[in-house]
């Protein structure tokens, strides 16, 4: 078998790439995509853990994460659509209402 460490490292790598995407992408849709990537990296972690302990609970957790992600995507996309309709842009640099 592949050692657990390898899966974990793969998961961390994907997670960091996701974070990088969130940090540097300007298109809000692609930021959402990066978040999906991060969620799946976490899922990989859970399933690897499930295999490590020889139990199915981790897999079920991954399943639930998936459900939550699906709900999150619907709302995230709805917000994105709304934003696009109002600002006619999905560029984070155009959306600076929080500027102090």
């Amino acid at each position, binding site marked *: 078998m592949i050692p657990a460490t*390898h899966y974990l490292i793969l998961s961390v790598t994907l997670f960091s*790439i996701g974070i*990088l995407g969130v940090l540097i992408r300007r298109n809000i849709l692609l930021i959402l995509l990066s978040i999906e990537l991060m969620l799946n990296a976490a899922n990989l972690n859970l399933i690897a853990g499930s295999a490590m302990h020889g139990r199915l609970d981790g*897999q*079920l957790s*991954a399943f639930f994460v*998936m459900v939550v992600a699906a709900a999150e*995507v619907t*709302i995230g996309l709805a917000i994105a659509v709304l934003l696009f*309709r109002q600002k006619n842009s999905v560029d984070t640099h155009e959306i600076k209402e929080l500027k102090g």
Partner: protein
Amino acid sequence: MSQALLFYFFAAVAVLSALGVVFHPRPARALLCLVVTMFALAVHFTLLGAYFVAMAHLIVYAGAVLVLFLFVIMLQGAGAREIALHQRFNIIYLLPAGLVSILLAGGLIALIRGSAFQALKSVDGTAENIGTLLFSQYLLPFEWTSLLILLGVFAAIALAKKDAA
């Protein structure tokens, strides 16, 4: 041995396509890169014995979520167009963000390598086993998820309604 081969190959595929998601100039293609990542991850899930989760993963992500994304990207009408570098990224954040991500990854990897883990066992995540567990021990959370999705639907409708804006 073949298992190790599969792992390293699909690990490489996953990482490369993930990088594609982050760096590809065309949003639609970046999305397609994510589909590839999802497939690679599904392979890893299968390797770990999570057969049912892998299938659900493919259906939910590759089949539904990402198609939804595709719709929205195409709706904006700029999905297929190539975006210039300075519009694609926060240029001034590129260096610090890269540094931070690499440091984060490095820290976590150091943490993982410094810790001892048990060897992986083979688990049997078939639809039957998962289903048994889901409808016995995890029944209540499972029902809660249906409520969550229902709320998500409501929220999406409320937000996206034209006159609401």
